[in-house]
């Protein structure tokens, strides 16, 4: 391995940072074209029913308006569901904007105004009048769960609840200590900073360059080709910079369809951008009800785990998450039964939101485990340690690595857990009730198929290209680091080209797999370069590298040398020059190892420790300290890695305390559809967050030893906060978010 440049593992600032802070990194809705048209959607104001009539005449007559599209006059679009299924589509019928007169959810786009200016489009949209034949809405998960069902078609085989093992019911009945509790979580709505937007730039020959806010340029590309019957070469999709996505951009959104539809129809460049309000009708983390039945013996050993979850989905698709399987693999337990159902609601289809499934499942599991520890009368961290398991009991597979024990140990030490007193309410400090809580987190570490091209020039410059996306996670930077590391250069020599559907194939950016997958593809590309250079060098006269193997090589000072004796080697310029080449390219490709998958499975792990201080009379909560200890294999860049965990923790605090779509269940409409009333944590809500990456060697999770960090940071945070609030106040909160009124009502002496 080449390691002397020390690029790998350095906390390098992100290479796209200067562009971002100076406002020069262009986002999807910032690409201009003279003569561009602008679109603004008009959305339904009932949650269910039909459009009885829609009057667009005033909007059409509005100065500057070019055309108003509704289900009545839209151009023909693909008619088969298949054409509408994107790379990560769900079982069911994908949403097609302006398909017909049916209203499936509050905020559904039912008209599109295209005008010469954004303002004209927006203002004209206010003039559209609709009569609805409305049906009764169904939006309250606590009511709709009565009609829950097992999804007939699983989203993924892995998401199916694993088969029961042992006899969970009998073991529960026989156990001395048990918990049977229900946890309810309100829906959360994706609100990354960048709004969804698409700019379609039409060139004279009719081909389209589509700047789209997405987590996968090739996913958007293929969907557009399918829906509009275009040839692949007629469309190029670019998502060079993405202003946060967190899963919201995994599936292409209707503004993409709208912008392309209008551009093709009107033969002009078109931009359609959403408003903040429209963000509330897109992808959301579904409202969920979970029932946990867990039992332990007097030593705190788990005797039985039953976990049943019911999640909201839409009328038209069966969105599903892996909510319950975590409960069968986090701790050792021989009697397990897991079940998962959906309930139809008149809401838009939910979607993946940072650690989908795990963030929700661990909210219930880790709350229940804490409750159980208090039943048994045992320190909650000790009980977790007691049930440590070293393999995956669900699938009977070995783990590629699991340094969760180190997370517990190092996290507890940093936090000072040994100074905790067990009794709730026993750590009062003046006016503050102090509570300490802990939770475990697990997330899957996966590799998805990825390709990358790497090109090395004689002067040591490198270009890396792949269709990967950087959704703010630092992909640009780590790909540069990996290339620099492998080709013996400093990071400033590397240019990274990503976010373009015409580049080498990459899956959508999600599931925390980009670093491992694209990173490994880049490494594979670098290896190919070295192999090519070596074979070229060996053909040269008097080559000092005759007989050398590629493993023995390093690149130093632009020379291909023997690692153990770098006097022996050749300048890259000479190798290329003598072969009349101006550069050398390597094409790297990775795929999950199917053979390995029969024996091994890979997860990232975390232990999160939280301190809350709660005003003893008023119930005002402050999360004053968080320690998040993470085991995620090799850390390529501690700085971008830490940022991912910080972001995950902050989002977890929002999930625990703030975020909630408030629905008027009489009408099925979301009422707090703006960022003044939909609360995420403000700066004042965030105090010390300490991130620890524990040592974890893993040579199987991915070729570069990386496991991915995008989601693990949020997992467990909600439960750790709830557990800390219990420790402070003695009241268990099982309805999330735990807002100030709930805490106040649960204070001692109320």
């Amino acid at each position, binding site marked *: 391995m080449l390691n002397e440049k020390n690029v790998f593992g350095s906390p390098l600032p992100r290479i796209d940072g200067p562009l971002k802070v100076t406002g020069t990194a262009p986002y999807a809705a910032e690409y201009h074209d003279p003569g561009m048209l602008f679109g603004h959607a008009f959305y339904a*104001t009932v949650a269910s029913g039909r459009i009885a009539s829609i009057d667009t005449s005033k909007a059409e007559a509005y100065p500057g308006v070019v055309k108003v599209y509704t289900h009545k006059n839209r151009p023909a679009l693909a008619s088969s569901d298949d054409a509408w299924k994107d790379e990560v589509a769900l079982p069911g019928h994908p949403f097609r904007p302006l398909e017909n007169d049916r209203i499936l959810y509050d905020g559904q786009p039912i008209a599109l105004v295209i005008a010469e200016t954004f303002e004209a489009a927006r203002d004209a949209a206010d003039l559209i009048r609709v009569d609805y034949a409305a049906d009764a809405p169904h939006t309250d998960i606590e009511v709709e769960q009565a009609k829950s069902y097992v999804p007939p078609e699983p989203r993924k085989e892995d998401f199916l609840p694993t088969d029961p093992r042992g006899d969970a019911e009998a073991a529960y009945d026989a156990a001395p200590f048990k918990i049977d509790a229900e946890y309810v979580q309100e829906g959360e709505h994706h609100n990354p900073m960048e709004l969804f937007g698409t700019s379609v730039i039409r060139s004279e020959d009719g081909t389209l360059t589509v700047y789209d806010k997405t987590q996968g340029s090739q996913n958007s590309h293929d969907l557009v080709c399918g829906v509009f019957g275009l040839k692949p070469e007629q469309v190029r999709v670019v998502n060079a910079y993405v202003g946060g996505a967190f899963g919201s951009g995994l599936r292409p959104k209707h503004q993409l369809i709208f912008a392309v539809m209008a551009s093709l129809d009107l033969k002009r460049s078109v931009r359609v951008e959403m408003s903040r309000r429209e963000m509330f009708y897109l992808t959301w983390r579904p409202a969920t009800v979970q029932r946990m039945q867990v039992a332990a013996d007097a030593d705190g050993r788990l005797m039985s785990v039953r976990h049943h979850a019911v999640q909201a989905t839409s009328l038209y698709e069966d969105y599903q998450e892996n909510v319950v399987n975590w409960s069968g693999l986090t701790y050792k337990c021989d009697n397990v039964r897991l079940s998962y159902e959906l309930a139809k609601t008149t809401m838009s289809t939910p979607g993946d939101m940072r650690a989908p499934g795990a963030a929700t499942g661990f909210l219930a599991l880790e709350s229940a485990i804490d409750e159980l520890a208090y039943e048994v009368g045992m320190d909650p961290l000790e009980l977790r340690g007691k049930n440590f398991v070293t393999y995956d009991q669900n699938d009977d597979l070995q783990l590629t690595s699991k340094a969760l024990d180190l997370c517990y140990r190092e996290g507890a030490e940093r936090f000072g857990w040994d100074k905790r007193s067990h009794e709730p309410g026993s750590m009062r400090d003046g006016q503050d009730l102090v509570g300490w809580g802990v939770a475990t987190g697990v997330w899957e570490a996966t590799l998805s198929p990825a390709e990358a091209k790497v090109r090395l020039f004689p002067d040591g410059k490198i270009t890396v290209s792949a269709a990967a996306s950087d959704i703010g996670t630092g992909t640009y930077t780590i790909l540069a680091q990996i290339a620099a590391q492998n080709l013996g250069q400093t990071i400033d020599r590397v240019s990274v080209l990503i976010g373009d559907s015409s580049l080498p194939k990459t899956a959508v950016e999600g599931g925390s797999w980009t670093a491992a997958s694209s990173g490994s593809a880049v490494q594979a590309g670098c290896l190919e370069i070295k192999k090519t250079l070596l074979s070229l060098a060996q053909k040269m006269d008097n080559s000092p590298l005759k007989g050398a193997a590629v493993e023995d090589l390093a690149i130093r000072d632009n020379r291909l040398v023997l690692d153990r004796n770098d006097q022996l080697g050749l300048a890259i310029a000479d190798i290329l020059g003598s072969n009349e080449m101006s550069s050398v390219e390597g094409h790297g490709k990775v795929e999950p190892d199917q053979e390995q998958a029969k024996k091994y499975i890979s997860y990232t792990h975390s232990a999160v420790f939280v301190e809350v201080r709660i*005003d003893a009379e*008023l119930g005002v909560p402050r999360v004053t300290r968080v320690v998040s200890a993470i085991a995620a294999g090799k850390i390529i860049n501690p700085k971008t890695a830490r940022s991912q965990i910080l972001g995950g923790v902050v989002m977890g605090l929002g999930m625990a305390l703030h975020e909630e779509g408030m629905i008027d269940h009489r009408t099925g409409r979301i009422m707090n559809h703006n960022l003044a009333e939909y609360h995420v944590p403000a700066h*004042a809500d965030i105090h010390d967050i300490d991130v620890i990456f524990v040592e974890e060697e893993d040579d199987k999770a991915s070729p570069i030893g990386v496991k991915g960090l995008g989601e693990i940071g949020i997992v467990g945070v909600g439960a750790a906060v709830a557990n800390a609030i219990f420790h402070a106040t003695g009241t268990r909160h099982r309805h999330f978010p735990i807002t*100030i009124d709930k805490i106040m009502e649960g204070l001692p002496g109320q």
Partner: protein
Amino acid sequence: MRPFSYTRAETLGDAMAALAANPTARLLAGGTNLIDLMKYDVERPAAIVDINRLPLKEIEELPDGSIRIGALVSNATVAHHPAVTERYPLLCSAILAGASPQLRNAATTGGNLLQRTRCYYFYDPSTPCNKREPGSGCGAIGGVNRIHAILGASEHCIATHPSDMCVALAALAAIVEVEGPDGRRDIPFSDFHRLPDDHPERDNTMRHGEIITAVRLEGNHFAGHHSYLKLRDRLSYAFALVSVAAALDVKNGMIVDMRIALGGVAHKPWRDSLAEAEFAGQPATEETFAALADRLLAGAEGQGDNDFKIPMARKAIVRALKQAAAGTPQVQSDKQIR
């Protein structure tokens, strides 16, 4: 958003003439509320009259010891002005409890008084709302009403006035100076905002064509014992669920004089001067404060989601008065409850 005409007034006379010329004309001050509402298609003025050039940007210290704050002085300027900090720290504290630094820099004194409710339904023109569209009904009654009123509501509207600054101004018994076609007048703060009764579309007692020119504060004895306590859904940058502006004049442990106003609970900053008078002369103790809280909240009624505001207000009143009595006012910078 609807098209509108824009004019910039150079004098008060210009502004009044422009208002008189168009019944839907609106003045533009900081714009932090008006422009939002126009974008949401809630406010639909045909004419915008920009008053930012009017000479209403001074804070004057008057010979009789009072202070006059021009209507266009920014919230931030008021909060950091030495004379205000010294004599009306309660006002500074209330301002700093609200919004964000960016908003406080843009928001003006007059605009703050006239900001409109944050009721979700008011903000969404596709729902019924008597305040936005008289006679259309009230969406919030029986709906999502976490942030709504527990005092002084009517069957037509249960909205609250969202301002923090106004709660302190109510407690300090400010005077609002307005000027209109019929000349100048002074409006005592308690008469400025109104309860919804059967006209929720009217937030206050100003007449069309009138302009706020200043807010006047008289001398007081409260600078030593005051507190502004705000409870909300996150520690900063959220409107009050309940807030309390408390001001005491205490001697030898006895209340000589007191003021208390509540925010987030009614269609106007809630103040009951009869109750204040009754409690003068009583010991400044927790028992007294609890009795006062009960008295203030005697008629309180929840709407469902906001039932919690009644116990919350009771506790907040007691705590704010305790903070005031102890001379340890709530600090707004670190948001830590004292």
